[in-house]
């Protein structure tokens, strides 16, 4: 699959398969298009060439109705949770149920409380999103993402900005959701250690292509410089420390006018 935007190539000949019932991790440095990949999978944008298939259907050929039907079988956890700020925790989790299923209120309540209990926030059901910490907001968003019992759960940078305890909680929840519910999980992140502890398959993206794939252990053993730099968190390497610039010495000695 190839994807370009504004004349810039984001993906060039990308070939990835996320297998059913497994946790697949997409890793890579910032700006490699990990979130764009999720947008392609969920039909928010379309590939320039090639194919993106979900549930055996070509995403780019789906009508709006079919796309929405596909999304009902998916759940997505956004970077910041993306909770609806005018609804409390309970109503946020109930939102997809009220939108898509004409269920009696007692059943809605049962489903919402079950999902909130699964993420440990049943007691926070009447709090507003502004009253939640970052980790709590993400757990509520996870409860909302699973309330329709999706077949695929997508996590966009689930660990960003979280303290170690919250990170551990989210890690455990991703693993639990996968094992207990058999949900196919796709996780996009650059937190190597966390992903290594939960992912079955990993893909390392860089420069618009997959530079390495396999289990986290296999990636750790790789000798490829891109993989070693990313997995080892090295400041310099194939991904340069310095943004491309003119000669440092010439620019320093060339006067203020040129520097600007």
């Amino acid at each position: 699959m190839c994807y370009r935007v504004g004349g810039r190539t984001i993906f060039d000949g990308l070939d990835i398969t996320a297998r059913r019932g497994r946790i697949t991790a997409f890793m890579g440095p910032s700006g490699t298009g990990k979130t764009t990949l999720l947008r392609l999978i969920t039909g928010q944008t379309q590939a320039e060439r090639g194919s993106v298939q979900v549930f055996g259907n070509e995403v780019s050929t789906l009508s709006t109705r079919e796309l929405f039907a596909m999304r009902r079988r998916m759940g997505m956890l956004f970077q910041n949770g993306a909770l609806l700020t005018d609804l409390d925790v309970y109503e946020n989790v109930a939102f997809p149920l009220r939108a898509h299923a004409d269920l009696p209120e007692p059943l809605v309540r049962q489903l919402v409380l079950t999902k909130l209990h699964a993420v440990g926030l049943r007691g926070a059901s009447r709090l507003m999103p502004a009253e939640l910490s970052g980790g709590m907001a993400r757990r509520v968003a996870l409860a909302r993402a699973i309330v329709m019992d999706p077949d695929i759960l997508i996590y966009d940078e689930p660990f960003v900005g979280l303290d170690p305890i919250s990170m551990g909680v989210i890690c455990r929840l991703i693993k639990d959701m996968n094992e207990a519910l058999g949900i196919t999980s796709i996780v996009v992140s650059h937190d190597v250690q966390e992903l290594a502890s939960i992912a079955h398959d990993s893909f390392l993206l860089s420069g618009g292509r997959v530079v390495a794939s396999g289990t986290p252990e296999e990636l750790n053993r790789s000798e490829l410089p891109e993989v070693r730099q990313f997995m080892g968190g090295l400041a310099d390497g194939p991904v340069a420390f310095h943004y491309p610039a003119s000669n440092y010495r010439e620019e320093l000695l060339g006067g203020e006018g040129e520097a600007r």
Partner: protein
Amino acid sequence: MNAGSDSLPVVAVRRVGAMTLFLLQVLARIGPAFTRPGLIVRQIYNAGARSLVIIMLSGMFVGMVLGLLGFDVFQRFGSEDYVGVLAALGNLKVLGPVLTALLFAGRAGTALTSEIGLMKSTEQLTAMQMMAVDPVRYVVVPRFLGGFISMPLLAATFTAVALYGAQLIGVQQMGVDAGAYWSQTQNAVDLRDVWEGVVKSLVFGIAVSLVAVYEGYHSEPTPEGVGLATTRTVVISSVLVLLLNYLLTAAFLTTH
């Protein structure tokens, strides 16, 4: 295409076209939106009830100024009784709907734009799309309807308070005879004048609400983008209201 290099008329035509298409999108979803009346009622409260204080205060001051000005002018001709006529016709036909729309754009329009813009920048609209929920139907239409329904009610409130303000100055303070004041007003004001104000406030309600939700929905999802969109709401709404006021006034005069 770089919009920044286009001339102002091209940008204006493009924006009018985009807004018209957006209005059609909104209109196509109005029926289903009424299946959740709670959402609309909440927006009427946000856009209408919360604007009441500023509308009533402004109406009172505008009415009082008209009372003073009218008395000053008419007393030169010995026709102080006509102060009520000036206040009634001026408020019903022009000042009520126009000033309410301008205040509404500044108070409720900016709130609508920034709220939708912030929802966009915090990915709430994308999250809805990912939950297979149409954000135009759930977010935009109730807010548009809330604004559209509130506008005529606010304009009526503004006009009523302004008439009271003019009476307060003309009759209570300046001593114009109350009977003459009200009878002259009653004789001069036709149902058609009331109708003109109602039509204007309905049209302004559509215009301001549409601009506000359009700018919010199409804002850049950044703090700067939301700020710019909010500014555009005030600027475009204000110019549009004044332009539409001219066109509607001319139309009513020619059909008189």
